[in-house]
Structures are given as C-alpha cells and as structure tokens.
C-alpha cells in the first residue's frame, strides 16, 4: 500500500475521507444532549439500583458485618457479601488478587465490602450508611518509602542493565544524585463508573458497561457468576471519558451489578457517585525516583542509575506492565549507554493503582527529564543544550536500554523547528532580563521532547478484529473491537472504511462495541486503537471490495483492473453504477456482503524475561516549549505561553488529532501542577471530588497556545494510512510546564542551585522550592 494510499487519500471526493477534519461522529448528539451514555439507556421497569458499602479501614480483618438495618431500610430488595458470590470472587485482570467484595480482609479504605439493591438510587445510598462493620485493625503501609523498607511489593523488583553504570559514573568528570516524588492522578472522567446488568433467558447476562475493555468484563462477569464466556454479552456504545480509568476498573462495577442481577433476577444498575468513584477506583501511580548520574563537561550522560518505586496499592491490577513501561520510557529521547534501572512495585494499603494515559511512560520520562535538567543547572548551561547533547543519534547511539533500535528518530528536526518557530532563544534572554528586574515575580521557560513507544508491551495484545456488513441499499454497518471514549476512534475507523469503499461517511453506521460481534478484543488502550482497529476494518472492507470487484468484472465483462471505486460510484470499463446499485446487483447474484477483518501488529517481539527485543512497532515524537510566571511570595503560578510541535504521522483526522494534543497536554499540566491526591494518616483519601481535587479549568489554558502538527511526515512504518497513534504521547509534552516552573524557581538563586521541586507543583510545592533557593543564597 503505502504510496498509493497517500495518493488515494488526496484524490478522494467522498465526504469524510481519510485525512479530512470531519467532526466527531457524535458531535451533534453531544451538543443536543441526545448522545446516550450508559445511565441514559432506558431502564427496564423492574430495574434495581445498587450502592456499595466500603471499608472504613486501610488494613483490617472484618470481625462482623451486621446488615440488619440495611435490609430493613425503605426500598431495599437484597444485599450481598463475599459469601454470596457463586463463582470466583475476583475482578483482577492479570493476577487473581482483587476481590469483588472483601472476603474478610480489607486492604484499603474504600474497598467494596457489600452491595445493596433498592428501588431507587437514593434508597440504596441511604441504606448503605446503616451497616455496622466491626474490624480488627492490622498495621497498614501507606506510603512508598515505608513499603520499600518493609519489602512490601505486589510483584518482584525488576532490573534493566546495560553496560557498566557503576564504573561509568565513577569515571565521569561530573557526578550528581537526586530524587523527587511524583504524585498520582485521578482520571476524572466526567462520566463516573457505571454498569447495568440484565438477566436474560436461561441464566444468561447482558451487561451495559462503561468500559474500555468489554471482553474483559465478559470474562470476569462469567467467572464471578460461574458461567462461561458464551453466556455473557457486554456492550458499550460510548464512555463519557476513560483515560485508562475504564480499562480494568469497570470490572468491579460490572461484576457487582451482574452478581446482583443473577441473585435477584432483575435488571441491576450500579452507578457510583463521584466520591465513591474516586475513593474506590484506581488512579495513576505515584512514584519516587532516585538517580545517580555521571556526565562529561558538555552534559553528556556517561552512566546512570535509576531507582523507580511506585505505589501499586493493594493488588497487582495492571501494575506490572505500567512499571515496565516506566522503565522503557526513562530514556525519553535520550541515549543511555551505561544504565541500570531498578523498579520496585510497592504494595500499600491504598486503592490499587491502574492505567492512566501514558501508562507509566510519563513517570519514566519525568525521571530522565529531572536528571537532564539537574545536569544543566549543575553545569550552568541552557537545559536545551544538555537535552540535545543526549538525544538518540541517527545511525549511531540509537539503541534503547531494552535493545530496540530507534529507526524512525525525528526528534532533531522537531526540536530544531520548534526552537525556531517558538523564538526560544530570544525568549530565554527575555526571561532572564525580566527576572533581573523583578524581585517577586519570576518567569521561567523550558523545552522538553517526547518520544513514546507505540504498541502493547505484551505482544499478544496487539491484535484486533472488525466486522462489516453491507446492506442492499449500499449502507454499511461497522463494528470493531475498539471502544469510544471521546478520542474519536469510531470516527477515524469509519473514515478508513469510507475511504476503502469510496462512499460518504454518512452511509456508514457506527455501532456499539459488542462482545457478540467482535470477540476476544484487547482493551482500547496503549494509543493503539486506530492503528489496530483501523487496519482490521480496512482488511474487512477490502475483502468486500475484492468480492465486489470480482463480481463487477464478471458482470460488466471487464478485467478487475478496470473496476474502480470512487465518489460513491463504481466504474467498470465504460459502465458506471452507484455503489448501492452494484451492491444490489451483487446481492442478487448471491455475493457475500459481510466480512470480518483481523489484524496483528507486525515486527514486534519482545522477551519479558530479559527486557529485550522490539516491544514497540514505532515511536511517536513531539516537543513543547512552555513559559510560566511564578509568585515567590505565594508559589502561585500561571502558564503564559505554549508552543507545541507534534508528530501524528499522516493524520487520519487533523481535527481529532489536534483535540488529542491539546487535551492530552492540558491533562498533563493538571497532573504536574494542580491535581494533588492527599491521604490522611488513617489512609483515607481526602481529595475525592472536584471540590478538593482540582483538574485544570478553562482559565488555566493560556491564551497564547500554539499547537502545530508536524507536516509531511508519514509514519515510516506501514500503519493505517501512515498515521501515528496520538492518544497518549501529547500528555507528556506537559513536562515542559514543570520544567519551566523549575526554571523560574532556579532564578531565585540566580540559577546557581538545582531546584528541589516535587510534583504536583502546587503553590505550596513551588513556595517550598523557592524558600529553599532563598535559604541557600
């Protein structure tokens, strides 16, 4: 394909062709309030509403659960505890260590202990409060450092080693060590977790779930209810945001709903309120990072050792792959020659942490960007010079610490262009000038790069399926294993099909993800949704197109080469018929008009035991320059200007990709500045609603926000129309904001000291860092 795909996209006259900025397929429904989310689906008349009783202790044995008052509360129909689960009491996706309802031991505040079904949401929630649970308290481990000291891990510690970091550091001209803590992040999808389970005949279950992974809901519901996969169907038309928070977490919600539906024989809906959602479900892992580095006088890293430790919480969940990805991304765009990376996966008595856009990658990158910035401050040079000094080379210095050759490196071009278009040099000088004259307010500026590996690191997950029906009127029903969470996947895949069949996009019905249509699908995650499902749908469309081509050649007595699809028509030699007409003719001649497509990502192979191979099909790149101003009296800060240049390959839909870049970036800014998760000494999360947990608001987005996509830069790998995945990478562009704040803080000591700034850089964290700079003056 390749070259001809690119020409065919340019020539397309159809509406919604690949590469055009068609709006999100649901945009009109969103804006009129007619888009149906799980809670909007009409409820069966006898629906029951559920609520969940949660543990009040971080670590305790349950002595007694007294639900008498709950059962007799108004409207209550049934209650359920661990003892009532007929199948396996587990919703853990990888390791079976995540009970649906706590079986006697509670391991975090907020863990589900029992569920209640009642006639209304209000009745269920009021009833839950009436439970009496007696606990026998056990010692909790609530933070990472304590967990390391106690060797409390959910999984064994991992290590990647290349070369001899010890002696490289010892022999280097300069050495530094440092550490930082990096807070977690709640996904804060606007639509909370929800599922509705409907009992069907013969004990089967139909589950509506707001999930990125219907197949896993199907599996875990089947296991919990003692059924097999064939007995359960899971459907999801759309989610009101997910960001990784609906990869493994919805299983708990769906299992509770399904179990109660099984028990009562009635439809059961569980919708978590915001507080319960934030207390009970997992978030981005918080990390501590320690490093030791040796480097030369130009700042080139000669040897480096990292210790990453993350708070995984009480169970494994997806922590293995997340922490692996942190290890894979602690190089970011830099070549690390002699390197040792140690990764601890800490078990704590807090909620089990989970996927969130970037999936460990952001935390790994945070580590290396910290090192590079520290080196620059130590040497007294512009951090950008140190960054460039360490970039992966082209044809040399190009192998990652996990032995994948970086073959598609474009970071040099991106950074060069961005330095130019953002006027970086002049602005650095201006910032210095401003700071000289301004004792209270200080400005800071930073450029940071992103290189992000695309594919699931677990090779087997890199597969996708699609199902395509063409009806006799020439309209198309499209289904695939991906899910729609707002990222525009459904639109992009429909564009691919429109392009293949050369029909307008409004001839294609986009349909809900459904385990009975496309089986065994992977989660829509790892940014790979459009890469994989786009390909699978393309393959399905090509099958049908091939059949139609063959048919048309026969029917019109021309060669297959003379059959051309274009602009809702098909030309066969001198005959031109509409697509619909050809379809009708084909149906009449008993040609199959339905096809499946299956795709597996090529080239990848990777050995988890040695951490080596090619986990990633390709890399996505980008860079950002951010400028901030801070108040050294209060630590308050504002982002005043952002310039981004990001690589989407040959974009399938520039409007949707732009949305991913802007939205991902701002989400990252929240992670690094205002979104603080705060637990008290009793292990209770106290920031569990938007009143206390602050994601960016409109005014946090700078007026001067210049985002561009890298032009004429098709993916060097043969991806769907040479596009690149864009879901996760832009989030990490926000590291530029964190480093701009560091830059402003460093100006307090006239750039003579490395700032010690933890993330999130709340006003408090910034003021602490400023104060430390002043003390050392």
């Amino acid at each position: 394909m390749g070259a001809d795909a690119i020409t065919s996209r340019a020539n397309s006259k159809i509406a919604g062709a690949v590469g055009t900025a068609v709006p999100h397929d649901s945009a009109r429904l969103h804006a009129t309030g007619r888009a149906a989310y799980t809670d909007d689906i009409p409820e069966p008349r006898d629906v029951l509403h559920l609520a969940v009783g949660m543990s009040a202790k971080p670590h305790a044995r349950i002595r007694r659960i007294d639900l008498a008052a709950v059962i007799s509360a108004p409207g209550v129909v049934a209650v359920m505890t661990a003892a009532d689960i007929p199948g396996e009491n587990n919703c853990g996706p990888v390791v079976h260590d995540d009970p649906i309802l706590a079986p006697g031991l509670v391991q975090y505040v907020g863990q589900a202990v029992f569920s209640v079904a009642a006639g209304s949401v209000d009745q269920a929630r009021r009833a839950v409060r009436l439970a009496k649970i007696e606990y026998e308290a056990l010692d909790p481990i609530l933070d990472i450092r304590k967990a390391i000291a106690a060797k409390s891990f959910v999984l064994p510690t991992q290590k990647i080693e290349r070369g001899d970091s010890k002696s490289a550091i010892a022999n280097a001209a300069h050495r530094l060590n440092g550490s930082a803590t990096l807070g977690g992040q709640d996904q804060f999808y606007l639509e909370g977790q929800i599922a509705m389970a409907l009992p069907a005949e013969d004990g089967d279950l139909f589950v509506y779930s707001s999930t990125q992974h219907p197949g896993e809901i199907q599996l875990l519901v089947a296991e919990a209810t003692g059924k097999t996969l064939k007995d359960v169907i899971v459907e999801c038309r759309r989610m009101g945001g997910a960001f990784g928070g609906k990869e493994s977490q919805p299983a708990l919600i769906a299992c509770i709903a399904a179990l109660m539906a099984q028990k009562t024989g009635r439809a059961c809906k569980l919708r978590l309120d915001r507080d319960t959602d934030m207390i009970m479900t997992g978030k981005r892992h918080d990390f501590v990072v320690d490093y030791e580095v040796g480097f030369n006088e130009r700042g080139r890293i000669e040897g480096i050792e990292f210790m990453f430790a993350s708070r995984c919480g009480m169970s494994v969940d997806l922590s293995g792959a997340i922490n692996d990805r942190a290890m894979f991304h602690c190089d970011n765009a830099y070549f690390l020659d002699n390197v040792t990376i140690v990764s601890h996966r800490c078990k704590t008595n807090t909620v089990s942490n989970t996927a969130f856009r970037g999936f460990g990658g952001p935390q790994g990158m945070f580590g290396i960007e910290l090192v590079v910035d520290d080196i620059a401050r130590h040497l007294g040079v512009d951090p950008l010079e140190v960054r460039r000094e360490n970039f992966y080379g082209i044809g040399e210095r190009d192998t990652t610490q996990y032995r994948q050759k970086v073959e598609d490196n474009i970071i040099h071009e991106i950074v060069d262009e961005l330095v130019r278009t953002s006027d970086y040099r002049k602005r650095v000088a201006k910032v210095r000038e401003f700071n000289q004259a301004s004792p209270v307010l200080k400005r800071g500026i930073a450029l940071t790069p992103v290189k992000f590996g695309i594919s699931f690191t677990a090779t087997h997950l890199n597969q996708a399926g699609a199902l395509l029906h063409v009806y006799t009127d020439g309209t198309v029903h499209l289904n695939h294993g991906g899910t729609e969470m707002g990222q525009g996947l459904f639109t992009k895949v429909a564009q691919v099909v429109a392009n293949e069949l050369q029909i307008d996009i409004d001839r294609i019905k986009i349909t809900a993800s459904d385990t009975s249509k496309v089986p065994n699908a992977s989660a829509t995650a790892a940014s790979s949704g459009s890469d994989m499902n786009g390909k699978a749908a393309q393959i399905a469309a090509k099958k049908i197109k091939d059949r139609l081509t063959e048919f048309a050649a026969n029917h019109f007595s021309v060669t297959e080469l003379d059959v051309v699809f274009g602009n809702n028509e098909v030309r066969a030699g001198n005959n031109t018929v509409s697509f619909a007409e050809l379809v009708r003719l084909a149906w009449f001649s008993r040609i199959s008009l339905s096809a499946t497509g299956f795709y597996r990502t090529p080239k990848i192979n990777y050995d988890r035991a040695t951490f080596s191979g090619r986990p990633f099909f390709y890399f996505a790149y980008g860079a950002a320059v951010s400028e901030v101003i801070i108040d050294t009296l209060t630590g308050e800060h504002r982002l005043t200007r952002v310039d981004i240049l990001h690589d989407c390959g040959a974009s399938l839909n520039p409007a949707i990709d732009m949305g991913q870049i802007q939205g991902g970036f701002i989400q990252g800014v929240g992670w690094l500045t205002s979104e603080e998760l705060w637990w008290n000494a009793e292990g209770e999360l106290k920031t569990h609603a938007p009143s206390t947990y602050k994601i960016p608001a409109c005014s946090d987005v700078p007026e001067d926000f210049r985002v561009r996509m890298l032009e004429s830069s098709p993916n060097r790998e043969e991806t769907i129309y040479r596009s690149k995945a864009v879901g996760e990478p832009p989030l990490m562009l926000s590291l530029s904001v964190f480093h701009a704040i560091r830059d402003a803080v460093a100006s307090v000591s006239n750039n003579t000291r490395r700032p010690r700034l933890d993330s999130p850089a709340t006003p408090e964290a910034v003021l602490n860092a400023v104060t430390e700079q002043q003390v050392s003056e």
Partner: protein
Amino acid sequence: MSARDLDVPVQRRSMRFILDGEVVEIENVDPNRTVLQYLREDLRRCGTKEGCAEGDCGACTVVVVDRDVSGKRLRVRAVNSCIQFLPTLDGKELLTVESLSTDGELHPTQKALVDCHGSQCGFCTPGFVMSLFALHKNNADPTRREIDEALAGNLCRCTGYSPIVEAARVMYADELQSKCWLGQSRSSTVGADEQSRIVALNSIDTDVPLCIEGHGRKFFAPRELDHFADLVALHPDATILSGGTDVGLWVTKQQRDLPIIIYTGNVAGLNECLVDDGYLDIGAAVSLTDAMPLIIENYPTLEELFVRFASPPIRNAGTLGGNIANGSPIGDSMPALIVLETEVVLRTGGSTRSVALNDFYLAYQRTALRPGEFIERIRIPLPVEGEQVQSYKISKRFDQDISAVCGAYRLQLADGKVEKIGVAYGGMAAIPSRASLCEQSLMGQEWSEASVSRAMQALDKDFSPISDMRSSSQYRRNVCRNLLRRFYLETSASVIERVYSIGR
C-alpha cells in the same frame, strides 16, 4: 403556632414552572429532590448529566429564567441543577439542553461547538452549551477573560478547552443569532420573545405563598418578610434555604434528611440591594451575582476576590447571606467583610438586632444566630476616603476553588503612619477572624518594611492553622505572612502585578 401563620389564608400545595413553553404543575414533590433528579429520573430527560452532584463540574448546568426585581426584564442565569431543590423552580422558566434545538436545527451555541470540535466524549457538552447560552444572553462581546469566567464552573477533561473557547467566539458570528432573543444586559429594549416569556411567567405568578408537603417533608416559600420571620420562629429547627449551594450538598453528598425547609428566595423584603445611610445594604437573599457589582463598584480592589468566588452558576444561586450564615472557616467573603466592619442585621419574629460580623462567629461552625433567628440584611460601610482595601485568595487552582488561605487588609495612613488597620484571615483558624496581634503591632507604626516584618512575625502568634488536603499548616503560616507583605508591596511604591492576571 403564631397568629400570623394562621392569618395566611391560602397556601399553594403545588409548584408551577415553565418547560418548553408548557406550564408544568407538580403536587406533593419531595422538597429534598433536586432538579437534576427530577429531569433524569422522573422525566427521563437525560441530556443533563451528573458529574459530581456538588456544583463543581457543570455537567448538570441548566438555565433558569425569571423576572428581575422590576418585573419588567428577564434574568437568564445558568445554575447547577444537581444541587437545586425542585421547589425553588416555582414561578420560573427552566431551559435544558433539550430546549435549545428546535425541529432538529441546532442552536448557534450547539452548532459552534460542533463546528469547532468542542466535544470529545461529550459528557460535559450539555453543560457547556447551557453556560455558553447564558453567556450569549448576557454579554454581547466577551473577552477571553470573560469567557473563562463564564466557563469557570464547567470542567472538561477531554478537550483542553481551546475549541470550546473558540466556539464561544464563533457562536456570535452565526447569523441565526439574530433570531435569538437577548437578555437584559444585551439589549435596552424588550424584544417580542422576551415579552412573551415575561407574560408566560406572569401567568403562573401569584402572591399566594407555596407550602409543599411531600414524602414527609415540608417546603415553605413565603412571599412576605413578616411571614418568613414567623415561620422561622415557629420552626426553629427548620433549614433556612437561600441559594442552596451549601445546603444542597448536605442532601446530595451526605444523604441528610431536611424535614422542613424555609426558602428565602421569594421573600420580597430580602431580595434587594441599596445604598442607605452610609452603608451598602444587601438583602440576605440577594444572589452573589447581583450583590457583586454593587460591592465592586464601591471597592474595586475586591473584584478578583468575587470573580474567583465559586463560578457563575454558583454565584447565580448562592447568596452573601448564605456565605455568612454558613460560617465556614474558609468562606471567601468574610475576611474582607470583617475588615470593612460589616454588620449583620439579625431578626427573630418582629425584632431585629445588629451584630458586627467580627462578633458573629463564636466557634467552629457556631454563629451568634439564636434559634428562630435569621439574617435579614448585610450592611457594609461605604468606603472611606484614603483607605486602602485588599483581599487575596490562595488556592490550588485560580478558578472555582476553595481557599487554603484568604487574607483581607484595610489600611488608613496618616503621615506615613498606620492610623487604622484591619487584618483578617480565613483558613487560619476555626472561624474567619481578625489577626489582633498583627494589627496591634502595626497600629501607630511607620508603614515600612521593618514594621511589616514585625507584623508578619506577630501573625505567627495570632494563628495556629491546621494541615489538610488544601495545604499544610506550614504553608498556611508562610503564605499568611507573605500576603501581608504583598499588601505592603502593593500599597507602597513598588507595585507588583499578580500572576493571576498575567498573560490574559
């Protein structure tokens, strides 16, 4: 039972409001039911979403239309349906996202959001539509900053807001706009559409007070101040409801049961602001939105404080009276009002008394209000020539956040010496309070670096703040001191800008 209560001959048992041009009349509503529950659960009108049930995310934003004090113009206001109790809609018009597009044609606000790619997951979108709709009704040509302010109560986790801001601009360009009726602030004349809406509202208006009983709970919405006073005296355990931006959360977040609610919103005497006898005199039920312009006009330096107070939908419902009565240690209006020597007029039955706001707070969430007593008015002295007033709010996010620390200052100098000083803080103690030692240390002193440094140290003795999710006690101490220093810098020669306003 008081004589006057029995005097009231008729009370209405059913509430009425307008939806999609139709009068909706409901009997026996549960007074603890929210507008959002009514829309989603009873009507299954599901365009309006729940994202938090605490007024903080905007997914539930709807627009409420009613007549202003004159009765001749409309007020078009976005509010959070998740914390508004249903009976507060009585006598008003409700617009939801479904109300906007007629015959499948998109309203210009909706069209702009589609054209600018302003939705991704779309869950926040109906709320943004309604906030933008209200903006369009009230502001002819908003600046970026006014757009930010209008959207301060709407969170979007997907888009990063840029396309939504663009839509806010594009919706004005749409020629269809000419067909849309405009709000009071946008046109000096009453258009036909506005007129017909006023007529419709008049048609459901009545002087008969509302008294609803449903699900074992009562909701009184008296019209006359005397009647209100009697009801409060008669039901000392009742919950007085103003905007409900605190009270609503007791129900939606804590599942509390409020058996008797007495609503201030329809009480004629509580709904006006005036300048009287050297005071800004603000009725307890005046919304923050309506009280703000008067306060800012007299104290322009307090603009940032009020613009950063919650969000437009919260300010449209919430009142200054509610903020004061609620008595939270982190309420934003109190430090400023304390240094301005504000008085609150309290009333029980027929008798009133005036209490200095500074003496109103007794202990954590305990005020001077006696059983059966309520706040009738808030009286803020008019500015004094030559004095300087300032208030600073410190929070993790600039917009729609609760203060970690809020400081307020009032200074009168004579010959470079401090003749009068007021310093008060929220977030530093169990109640909003003056910093007496700090004030003492400054009285009569030179307004200088040296005396301000001493006063900063005195602040350490004034307060022992706590650590919580908003900040550590140490940060509170540091920033409390530094804000005094900022006030000094701003009032002495070396003016500093605040980061809040830079870059926009």
